[in-house]
């Protein structure tokens, strides 16, 4: 099966590969696996606490070319968006942009899941931080 040009491009020049400081409260980390093939993907975001804008996004994927391309594209798309806007990205958008064939749809699902997991983690951290602050001020 031949990969589309866009997949090849992202595969050869993946954008935003790397790691952010997991322990920072501004950082959310999503670690997900594809049940179909056992591949794993980690996607991290750094969110501006004032504006809720995702200022930085990094990924590291151990998987097929489509998974690498999907996560690379995902980081490009979410950078500069607010957290809520980023949640609107659907795996079908990725499928369309990269012209993924049906057998590779799960690779794009992995990327969507990773975005959600990263945002979920960030929300949990910050929800917890807010709750702790509220509890502290209530005393």
């Amino acid at each position: 099966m031949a990969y589309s040009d866009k997949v090849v491009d992202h595969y050869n020049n993946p954008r935003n590969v790397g790691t952010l400081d997991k322990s920072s409260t501004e950082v959310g980390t999503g670690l997900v696996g594809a049940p179909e093939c056992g591949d794993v993907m980690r996607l991290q975001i750094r969110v501006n606490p004032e504006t809720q804008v995702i200022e930085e996004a990094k990924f590291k994927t151990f998987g097929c070319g489509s998974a690498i391309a999907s996560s690379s594209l995902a980081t490009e798309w979410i950078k500069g968006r607010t957290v809520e806007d980023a949640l609107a990205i659907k795996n079908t958008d990725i499928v369309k942009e990269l012209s993924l064939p049906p057998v590779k749809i799960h690779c794009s699902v992995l990327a969507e899941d990773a975005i959600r997991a990263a945002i979920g983690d960030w929300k949990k951290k910050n929800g917890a931080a807010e709750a702790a602050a509220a509890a502290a001020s209530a005393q």
Partner: protein
Amino acid sequence: MLKDADSAVPVACWSCSVQHDEVTMFCPHCGKIQPPPGGDYFSVFGMEPRLNLDLAALEGEFHRLSRRLHPDRFARATECEREWSLADTALLNDAYRTLKDGLRRTEYVLTLHGAGNGTHIGSGFETQIAEEQNGKERQNASRAPADLLEEVFDLNMQLEEMRLRRQSGNVDRQSGKVNRELIEDLRAAKRKFETLREEVDRDLRGAWNDWDGGAADTRRRAQTNLRTLLDRRRYLSNLVRDVSEALGE
């Protein structure tokens, strides 16, 4: 002996016309070979489907049938009989190879009960196993259990570091030390995955007992359980294989 008693349609022997059970390879009356039997692999050996299988009995029956199917015995037989004996031999070998191995036997029982992994519909059971063991094919690799994600990710990082180091090939004293640490980490990871695999094997044996002894819904639950355990086991085996490869062991 068929898995469903009511599907056992008696047929008449082509040679002596005495009626006999469809799944026997040889007529119980005159001993002549019969057209290849229907039924499952267990019935080839006249056994009930069980996961805790009597392996000595299986082997004994396999040798007995192999001898009876030996080509020398059909040298002077009719064309039909010779063909049947070849087909029976192939069936016997597939059945024996599948049933004597605990994992393949489990996979087979799940396939019989519609709880196979469903990705190879239409291909024979033996081909399916062969494809799965050819596990390098990404689509055939197995599920990532959620509780292992973290470990799997870290392992992949270490494997990548190892590969990069090998590529750059500069092993001065400093990086030699780092390398040794990396190898230690990988060895530890391998031991860990092997231990997890042993746990899976223990759980599998427990689920075998449930399936063999259970009423209909215990059995169904055991099947779900077995499916999960087999997936997890295959996944762990792939990890052990990858680490071993990287370590050159």
